[in-house]
């Protein structure tokens, strides 16, 4: 006959399982409450907008007319230039501004930041300060200084709204700088560029084939922020008397509140879809391929 002596249970195991289960349940509940509050914070305004865009406020009748008008904005603009025309112009201008701002920002900032990191490191603090400066200046103050500048721009180029792209590039600088800076810091830029150059690559090729592919996520992040900022910008366009999406929505809201809200929601959805597409585009296929190591 053998007798076995049970070893004393480890300290952790001695803790009642019941207690641990309760704690886990409590943590899960708290987690879900936090998520629910955050979702509510974001979703309630959006759902309210959707509700308002589908239910006619005075009669209480449910209708998809406002959405139909948004979809057929182009044709309606011709027949009702007073309301739809302004909005349609603003929408087109904002679309062009998004593209121009993003392109100028990328072309200006990526090579500059790369060059500063590689060749003139002592200038990095100054560049950072200049790029972050717009963050500290309210848009209304910016407009005071921009007024005379845009008078010259209007004379030299034209009064076209698309020239707002210059000031929008300034506005997106702080956010784009941060995103790109993080991307550049994550790679060994010096070694990679020197390796490429030693293999015979010129600077343009170094930028295009080595630097850009390795900071693609950072560039896309900078683009995200730029798109969101340009689509939502109202103050400068309004004060400089230019027409963009937000000024168009503002004008329409004075005569057709439902259309204005519908357009705002449509713009949000458009921006969201655009960001998703960009996100998918920037998705790194190598991650899945490389998972087998």
């Amino acid at each position, binding site marked *: 006959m053998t007798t076995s002596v049970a070893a004393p249970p480890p300290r952790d195991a001695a803790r009642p399982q019941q207690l641990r289960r309760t704690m886990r349940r409590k943590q899960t509940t708290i987690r879900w409450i936090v998520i629910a509050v955050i979702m509510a914070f974001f979703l309630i305004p959006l759902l309210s907008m959707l509700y308002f865009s589908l239910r006619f406020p005075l009669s209480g009748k449910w209708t998809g007319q406002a959405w139909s008008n948004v979809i057929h904005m182009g044709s309606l603009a011709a027949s009702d230039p007073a309301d739809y025309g302004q909005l349609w112009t603003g929408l087109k201008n904002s679309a062009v501004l998004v593209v121009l701002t993003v392109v100028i920002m990328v072309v200006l900032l990526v090579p500059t930041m790369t060059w500063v990191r590689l060749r003139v490191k002592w200038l990095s603090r100054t560049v950072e300060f200049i790029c972050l400066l717009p963050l500290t200046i309210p848009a209304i103050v910016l407009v005071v200084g921009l007024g005379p500048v845009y008078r010259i721009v209007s004379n030299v180029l034209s009064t076209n709204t698309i020239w707002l792209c210059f000031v929008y590039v300034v506005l997106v600088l702080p956010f784009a700088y941060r995103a790109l800076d993080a991307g550049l810091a994550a*790679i*060994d830029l010096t*070694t*990679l560029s*020197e*390796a*490429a*150059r*030693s*293999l*015979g*690559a*010129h600077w343009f*090729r170094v930028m295009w*084939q*080595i630097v850009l*592919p*390795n900071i693609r996520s950072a560039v896309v992040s900078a683009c995200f922020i730029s798109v969101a900022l340009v689509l939502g910008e109202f103050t400068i366009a309004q004060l400089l008397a230019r027409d963009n999406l937000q000024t168009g929505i503002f004008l329409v809201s004075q005569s057709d509140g439902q259309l204005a809200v519908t357009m705002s929601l449509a713009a949000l959805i458009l921006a969201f879809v655009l960001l998703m597409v960009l996100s998918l585009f920037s998705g790194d296929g*190598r991650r899945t*391929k*490389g998972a*087998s*190591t």
Partner: protein
Amino acid sequence: MSAARMETAGAGTAAIGTVASVAPAHGVLVELRDLRRSFGTVRALDGMDLTINPGELVVLLGPSGCGKTTALRVLAGLEDADSGRITVDGRDISSVPTSKRDMGMVFQAYSLFPHMTALQNVEFGLTLRGKGSAERRRIAGNYLELVGLSEQAGRYARQLSGGQQQRVALARALAIEPKVLLLDEPLSALDAKVRVQLRDEIRRIQLELGITTLFVTHDQEEALAVADRVGVMWEGRIQQIASPAELYTAPVNKFVAEFVGLSNPLPGTASEGAATVLGQRVPLLPGSPQSGSVTVLVRPEAVTLVPGPDSAVGTDARSGSVAGTIVGTSFLGATGRAQVRLTDGTLIIAQIASAEVAVLRVGETVDIRLEQVPALAVAPRGA
């Protein structure tokens, strides 16, 4: 690469191809003349001269900050020299940009392009040279086989070990068939075993290709193992450039003697081509002071320890040897080291067979005898 012979270089080593299917390089003559480069008040290169003969592997060896990496970077065109001249086969390339210098380089940091596979990395330089897709693939495949990484051609850098990454970097540098191969401490990030394996592979490939190579390292064992000639650098200049054996046995100055291998600086008196050290005569190397008080740099392997029950600490007038007390021993494999303290506090290191080290005990008294190996003498400190 069916024609290539495959061989396995020991356990844990990838199959390595030979040079059969890659074009052997024609070594070029590289000359660096009176190179000067300063960073603020720091003189990284101070009139450096260096000649690398065709097909030769020269190692620049020196402590951190001695200017060796700057010299390599100036040769690669990654740094501009303040003055001086660089020629390759007689052609002045001092003002030629990096991308046109035709030099393959392997860096200390892992430098594979992370968004490309190993094969694409090796193909990169070939694309820049306008090679067609099929030819690129063939050449890149051959060089990957040369470094034993054919199987890993489709892997990204993060899927390769450090040693594998440096091998791919070597293949990438060689694939463009450069005139000169530059190696900037390529092994320093690797663990000891991989380091030795890759070091030997680099030397094998360099010899087979016959490519003129400049290798920079601060590891003297690495330098002595792979080099045709080693240039010891200090304060922006080459102090001595010679074969590893000559560098070790006949250093031209105190810095070289102390930096390459260990040495015991012992006081002595020079006369007639020899010095009296610890009561014994030691022949002096050319360049040593011929008279007066000197410090003789005696290699640890030139010191013999004789244990004896009758030894007493001090000088034995009959044998001419000096006795000291063992204060420490260390086992190094085939050999070992013993530290012996003399009565005046001088510490001497002796490198002896590990079997001899095993019988020594701390506190034991031993006789110290110096072998008749020529040693370098320098003026004593403060003279």
